[in-house]
Structure formats: structure tokens, C-alpha cells
């Protein structure tokens, strides 16, 4: 009886060399679909954003969306690709219920962008991931299985199809196989997808939200003994978080090493990543490869981007995110890791704008990465949609710097701001939250505190100045935190000296 023993990652990597490859799908944020004028808004009622074209009704014809072609070219340029002067869409034929025409209009042997690269940086070491192609295609609809307990097809009484997503432009970015990474392979995979996401976000062509599926990643992994040819690869589909990319590669290396250790052949197959367990499970077997019967799409004229237009797009590309990040980290006086967490939170532009509105880098970062990030997390919205503007955050920090708000009050003011009560000044006025440092108004509260705590007052009189803290606390309590602590302390000491 053979036993299946999972090797440790270290053992697997000590014995085998991994080769990885990544195919990333990005839904473009165009206003309309790839081949018709239907809206692309996420989350609409099923089948409300459809027309004869994206439903593939008999007789309907596609017309290519120029904005999608432009976005794809910009992605290609940002990934250092060559842009084809002439190319065509192709039909990829296969039957699937959520694909209206039973063929997907895609690109095959004539992609729009080829031969690029992305450099990723890990602990000061640079790894180059070469891009084979960037091409344009249309998304499919979504199947919904109802009546079962799991929402999956098994046990469902009915299957429904929502075609709202059908026809949304999708860009596929395919890397060349990346060998020679050794133990770094999972990290490089994650870093590459992160960098890709940042680049695409900087181009403003997609919201690249992995959790909403607007960016999806298929991870190819194979193992070979040193000196041998590359092994048989498996394809782990639809990995939907950055962390999962790393875990998927790692767990697939361990699983394949186990099979190779046993002398078992690796089957070329599609696998699915399990978020809960962190391993992969088999999907459709690829033993009999699907024949997609690609041929040039006869319903569409070829795409021939004007070279002057491409040059124009190239000239207008935003700075490379990694370069910009390094510059900002230096300007803001933070580490690369801290900068990465700012990027991951989607806070870069917000912090930049807050600084531009007058806040210090530390002040700006404090609010966006602290209170506001926490709130965005809790409510499940993007930081940019949390309810505060960079200008408001800058005003808030300004009031703190001027001593008109303490930390505790500032948090309350911010709460008012994100609740839609207006600018910090308006919230302060409406809620009566300003710091009170007027001695006249505070003297009564101080006298009250002294009268209520004669023992403590006596200690202070006897020279135990540290005991004054308790009196300050009492005053803060009666003034509901609005007193300026420094002023209160001075008043108490003056009274009791």
C-alpha cells in the first residue's frame, strides 16, 4: 500500500525546480460592452444590461468598442509590449450555457500586444517576468444554480443564466514560462500580480478588484528535476486574491513534488484553488484537449491601430507605479513595506491629495491608513468611497495641529464627516466639539474637582504633583473631553500651590 506523504515546501524546492506561468484576466472599466452599447455596471438585476448583440440573438452583429482597444493598447505599452500594426479578432468555439453565441470572440494567433515584461522587486532583488501577449476578448455570462443547498449545480433544481456580464471587455495578460526562481517562485508570482494590478490601476482602465472578479488569475505550475526538461504543468483557475496566488503556487509545488516523489505522472489538468484549505482540487481533465476551432472572426474588420495614435498613447502613459512608489516613500519618509501597504489599501492618491491640501505626510497617512481604513474595512467599501475627502482630512489635521482639537475629539469630528455632516468646522459647530482652553470657563470645573476630591487635593498641596493627574481626569470627565488638558493641569497646580 502506497502512502501519500506531503513533503515540506523546503524539501520540495530542494529537490525540484519549479516553472510558473500566469494568465491574468482583467475586466476593463469601459462604460459600454466590448461589442455593443450595453452598460457594464457591476451588480445590476440579472439580465437587465443586455441587448440582441450581447445575447447573441440570431442576426445580431458585433461592433468593436474603440475605448476597449485603446485601453488594451495602453496596458500593452505599460507592460513594455510591441503593439501590432494589424491584427484580427478570432472565434473560440465551444459550447457553454453562459456563452450566448457558443463561441467567444477573442484573439488567437494575432494578439494586439506581444513581447513585454514586468520587473518585480523582492528584498532588493529584481526579477523580470516576461509577457508573451496581451489580448482582448469578451467575458461570458454567469450561471446561477438554485434549489440546492450549496448554490452549486449539484442538487440544484434549476439553473439560471445572467448575461449582464456577457460581452464585458476582458484583457488577458499571459506571461512566458518563468523558470529559475527556485524557492522564490510563490513570492514572485504574488509580486508580479501585485505589480500588474498597480500598473493597471495607474492606467485607470479597470478597478482591478480581485474580490469582485474584475481581475482573475490562472496559475500554471510545473516541476522538474535539475537538468531535466520542464515538467507537465497544471493550471489552477480563478485564483482571486493576491495572497491566494502565492499559496496556490506553493501548495501546487508541494503536491506535485509528492506525486513525483512517488513516481506518479503529473496529468495536465485544470485545478481549483480552495480558499479555506489553501490547496488545489482537480477540475476538468485536460487529457482530451478541447479543440476550439479558432478562425478569424468574419463579423469584424481587422484592428489596425494608427502608429501615430499608439505613439500618442505611449507619450501619455502615467509614471510606472514602482518608480512612483519609491519616490513617494522617500518624500513621505516611510519604508518600502509601509508604502506597499498604502498601495494595497488604495490610499496613494488620497494621501497625495491630502498633502496637496496642506497636511503633513505623517498627518495625512495617519488618518487614511488608520481611522478611515478601519472604517472602510468594517463597512466593506473602498477607501475612496468611505465618505471623507482629502480636503476634509487636511482640515481636520490642521485643527489638531493648531490645538483646536485633541485626538479623541478629532476622531469624533471625523465620524461626523464620514456620516455626511459636512466639513470638520461644520461638525464641530453642530456637535459643539471644540477644545475649551478658556480659563474662565475651566476654573469652575477645576474648583469643582478639587472640592469633590479633598484627599487628592491635599496630596498635591503636599508636593505630590503626580497626583494632579487624577484631578485632570475628573475635569476632562465633567467637560466631556473637550477641555484642553494642558490648561487644566496648569490651573490645578496654580490653585493648589
Amino acid at each position, binding site marked *: 500500500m502506497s502512502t501519500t506523504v506531503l513533503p515540506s515546501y523546503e524539501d520540495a524546492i530542494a529537490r525540484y525546480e519549479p516553472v510558473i506561468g500566469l494568465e491574468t484576466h482583467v475586466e476593463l472599466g469601459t462604460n459600454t460592452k466590448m461589442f455593443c452599447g450595453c452598460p457594464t455596471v457591476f451588480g445590476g438585476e440579472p439580465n437587465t444590461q443586455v441587448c440582441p448583440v450581447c445575447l447573441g440573438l*440570431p442576426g*445580431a*452583429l458585433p461592433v468593436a468598442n474603440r475605448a476597449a482597444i485603446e485601453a488594451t493598447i495602453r496596458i500593452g505599452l505599460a507592460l513594455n509590449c510591441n503593439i501590432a500594426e494589424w491584427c484580427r479578432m478570432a472565434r473560440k*468555439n465551444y459550447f457553454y450555457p453562459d456563452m450566448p*453565441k*457558443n*463561441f467567444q470572440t477573442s484573439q488567437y494567433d494575432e494578439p494586439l500586444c506581444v513581447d513585454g515584461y514586468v520587473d518585480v522587486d523582492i528584498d532588493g532583488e529584481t526579477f523580470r517576468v516576461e509577457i508573451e501577449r496581451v489580448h482582448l476578448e469578451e467575458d461570458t455570462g454567469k450561471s446561477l444554480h438554485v434549489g440546492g443547498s450549496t448554490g452549486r449545480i449539484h442538487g440544484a433544481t434549476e439553473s439560471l443564466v445572467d448575461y449582464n456580464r456577457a460581452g464585458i471587455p476582458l484583457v488577458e495578460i499571459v506571461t512566458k514560462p518563468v523558470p529559475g526562481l527556485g524557492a522564490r517562485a510563490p513570492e514572485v508570482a504574488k509580486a508580479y500580480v501585485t505589480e500588474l494590478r498597480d500598473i493597471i490601476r495607474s492606467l485607470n482602465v479597470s478597478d482591478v478588484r480581485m474580490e469582485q472578479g474584475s481581475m482573475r488569475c490562472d496559475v500554471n505550475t510545473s516541476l522538474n528535476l535539475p537538468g531535466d526538461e520542464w515538467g507537465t504543468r497544471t493550471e489552477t483557475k480563478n485564483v482571486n486574491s493576491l495572497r491566494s496566488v502565492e499559496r496556490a503556487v506553493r501548495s501546487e509545488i508541494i503536491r506535485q513534488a509528492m506525486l513525483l516523489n512517488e513516481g506518479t505522472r503529473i496529468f495536465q489538468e485544470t485545478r481549483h484553488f480552495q480558499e479555506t484549505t489553501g490547496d488545489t482540487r482537480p477540475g476538468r481533465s485536460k487529457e482530451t484537449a478541447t479543440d476550439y476551432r479558432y*478562425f478569424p472572426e468574419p463579423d*469584424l*474588420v481587422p484592428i489596425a491601430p494608427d502608429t501615430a495614435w499608439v505613439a500618442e498613447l505611449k507619450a501619455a502613459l502615467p509614471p510606472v507605479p514602482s518608480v512612483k512608489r519609491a519616490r513617494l516613500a522617500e518624500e513621505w519618509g516611510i519604508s518600502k513595506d509601509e508604502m506597499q501597504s498604502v498601495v494595497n489599501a488604495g490610499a496613494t492618491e488620497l494621501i497625495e491629495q491630502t498633502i496637496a491640501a496642506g497636511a503633513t505626510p505623517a498627518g495625512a497617512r495617519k488618518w487614511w491608513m488608520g481611522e478611515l481604513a478601519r472604517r472602510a474595512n468594517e463597512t466593506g467599501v473602498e477607501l475612496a468611497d468611505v465618505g471623507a475627502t482629502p480636503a476634509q482630512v487636511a482640515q481636520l489635521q490642521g485643527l489638531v495641529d493648531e490645538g483646536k482639537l485633541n485626538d479623541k475629539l478629532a476622531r469624533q469630528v471625523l465620524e461626523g464627516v464620514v456620516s455626511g455632516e459636512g466639513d470638520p468646522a461644520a461638525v464641530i459647530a453642530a456637535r459643539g466639539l471644540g477644545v475649551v482652553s478658556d480659563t474662565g470657563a475651566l476654573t469652575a470645573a477645576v474648583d469643582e474637582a478639587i472640592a469633590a476630591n479633598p484627599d487628592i487635593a491635599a496630596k498635591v498641596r503636599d508636593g505630590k504633583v503626580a497626583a494632579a493627574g487624577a484631578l485632570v481626569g475628573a475635569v476632562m470627565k465633567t467637560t466631556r473631553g473637550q477641555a484642553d488638558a494642558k490648561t487644566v493641569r496648569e490651573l490645578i497646580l496654580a490653585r493648589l500651590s
Partner: protein
Amino acid sequence: MTAAQIAGLISSGEASAVEVATAHLARIDAVDERVHAFLHVDREGALEAARKVDEQRSKGEALGPLAGVPVAVKDVIATKGVPTTAASKILEGWKPPYDATIVERLRGAGTVMLGKTNMDEFAMGSSTEYSAYGATNNPWDLGRIPGGSGGGSAASLAAYEAPLAIGTDTGGSIRQPGAVTGTVGAKPTYGGTSRYGLIAFSSSLDTPGPCARTVEDAALLHSVIAGHDVRDSTSIPQAVPDVVAAARLGATGDLTGVKLGIVKEFAGEGAEPGVMAAFRESVEALVKLGAEVVEVSCPHFEFALPAYYLIAPSEASSNLARFDGVRYGLRVGDDGNRSLEEVMSLTREAGFGPEVKRRIILGTYALSSGYYDAYYGQAQKVRTLITRDFTTAFEQVDVLISPTTPFVAFPFGSRTSDPYQMYLADLYTIPTNLYGGPAISVPCGLSEGLPVGFQVMAPTMADDRMYRVAAALESAVGTFTPPELSLESAA
């Protein structure tokens, strides 16, 4: 009576559009049981459209040149709310939620749509025998085929059920039925008429076009439906040539200075002697009108038929994939115990007829990996060579001429057992589709009492040239009326 004459009566007020529509509907009631040109008659829609024209006229509004004229539309073209089946069981009862662009244009021009005409299923065939709803009979001889795939459109004209009809031409489906029914059928330049709303057979070849009883009527209808459409990526943005003026010029009977090219490779191959005789007499008639005739060589035309029978089925196999029972039309075997694949498979098994299945299998094979280069790829190369033949020929002559079909209307069933014999019907029409240029079939005489068609082929976007030559021939040989039905004009 011609469409132009009917339009004249309506605009002058001598007849109302409702009277004209009613007369044609009555004619359909009287003869269509025997002819079976229509799959669906839209009585209400037709009368409604006619009433609108009469209203416009009574208000003194300007009417288009075909306002109030009835038109029959091939059932492969989407008509909003009116059944559209492509003569297939798989689409039985399907009512499109939208109009094809050319239907929009027909409605916009005030024409009155009578209904949907019969055809070979998904436009695959040359005899209308492959309709899932039964064949159409040729008004010249009810025991013979009316041509295909647009047999219903052509027969509706020959039987005087409609003065105008719309067809689609992928390999000759407008011209060949025109030829065997003694009517006029024109395939415009590919991209000159919009394919939006045309249920695709072979996307790179399909071309909607006009069917009529006279060249001028065809030109009038052509000018209504042609022109750029932003919804069809392959639609040509250029302005449509003035085909009506060209037809009227041709009708004056002067062809001085026009050079006609006879394709050497078409000389008599498989053509019936009677067809060739009528063709030769027509050429003589054109020479008498001042035309010059030279022989030109198109060496790759002999490969057109095999190339076509790889390209068209390949595209069809992909275009017809959407008919799977999931979204619309027929669904078979959905009893809760069968898998999706089984339901799709049973639906397609029951929904598609034999010729459609034959071509899907052929096309699937031709596109499959390992065979693509040998078949589809090779056929595309032949297509390029044929295009080159046309380009070279048009450097020497203004138009090319040939018989439209090698034979006159054949009896039902005589060719269905041998697909290759059926495919030969389109021998002379197919090269034009591979090239993309316009071509027209005009009646030129009779053989054994049955009509013979004369084909004029022109360079792309020179549709006007072929109308001029066709109208000149018509002025010399006249028009042809079938003898058997009672055929006095309906209007």
C-alpha cells in the same frame, strides 16, 4: 404591373396603399396554397403600414419612391414581433425583439411588408427543398424547384403575390432563384447592404439584396436598403452608387463603349445547350446595342466551388452553434433527468435538417486542429486568387457576363440524392461571393419553356454598372411571365 408603376398610382392618388395591400393579400390567398412562397403572412402589419402611407399622403407629406409598395421578406431576416425561422424547426415560432437594419429601412421608406418567404433551411440549398416547412413550387411549373435558397422570394414575384422581395445571397441564393423563375435578382457589393439582423449563414459571404420583376424595380429597392450601417462592422462607409439612374440609363438601350467580358472558364461547362443558346443570343443583342465583347481568363474560378464549400460551412458551423435550446426556439428532452449536453444534443438533432447537419459537420471538420491549414486555410488562399482574377479581368473589361445557372429549373427530388449535383447549381454565381463584388441575374430567354438567367458581374462598389447592362438587356429581350397561373397584375 411594376413596383415603380404601383408607387406612381399611390403617389398620384389613383390607388390607395390599402387597396394595393389588400389586392396582394387576396392574391396570396388565391395562389399561395399552390405556390407556397410564404411561411408567414403578416396581414395586420401590412394593412397597418399601408394605412400609415395613405394617411401621410392625405396630409400632403412627401412619399418615398416606393411608399405603399408591398414587399416580401426572406425568413432569414429578423422582423420585430413577426415570426422569423430561417425555415428551420429549431426557430419555430421565434419572434425577434428587433428589426434588421434593412427592415428598418424598408419600413422607413413606407414599403408594406406582406410577410416572410420560404427558403432552404438557414439558406443552405439551391432548390428550397430543404425548408423544414415544405418546398416552394415554381410558378412556371409547379412540379419544379423555384431555385434556392431564396425560392420563396423569387416565386412570390413570379406568382404576382408581391411586386418586390428581399433575398440574401451567400453563393447565389438571390440570383439562381431569379434565373429559374424569370425574375430579377441582384447581389449588391458585400458590405453595401447591412447584415445586421440577417441570421448568419456564412458571415464573410452573406449579402442581402433586392428581388424584383424588372431591373428598374430592383434598383429602386436596392437604393432603399443599401448604405452604411454603424451596427455592421463590415458595412462599407462609402456612398452607394446611383443604381436607379444607371438602370434608367441602361433602359435607353445604348451600350456604346461598354466592354463586356466572357469568362473563358465558364464556357459551356456542364451547362445545358438551351441555356447556352439563350446566353449567346443575349450577347448578340448586347452587341447590337453597341457593347464590345472580349473573352477573359479567370483561371482560378474552377476552384471556387470547392473553396466555397469549405469556407461557407466552416463559418456556418460556428454561426449555428448558438442554436442550442438554452435561450430561445426549440428545446427537446428537458425532462429534469438529462444533462445540459444531452438536451443541447437532442435539440440540435431534432431541430436541424439534413443539409444543415451535413454542413455543420463539414465545417467543424474543416476548422478542426490539424485540418485547418489543409482545408480552411487553403480555401482562403483560393479566395485570394479568385479575387485577383476578378481584379485582373476588370482591368480589361467593365463587367463580366455569364449564364446565371448551368440549367433551368429542375424537377423536385432530381438532385437531392446527390449533394454535388445540387451544389453545381451555383457554379457560376459563387466566384462573385468569394470576391465580394456585385452581380445581377436578369431573365434573357426561355429554354424548353422555362426561363434562363443572364448574369452581369461588376467590380466592388460599381453596382451601377451591372444595373446599366442588365437594364439594356431587359430593354432588348423584354420580361417573362409564367404561363400556368392566372397572372394578370394584382394591383
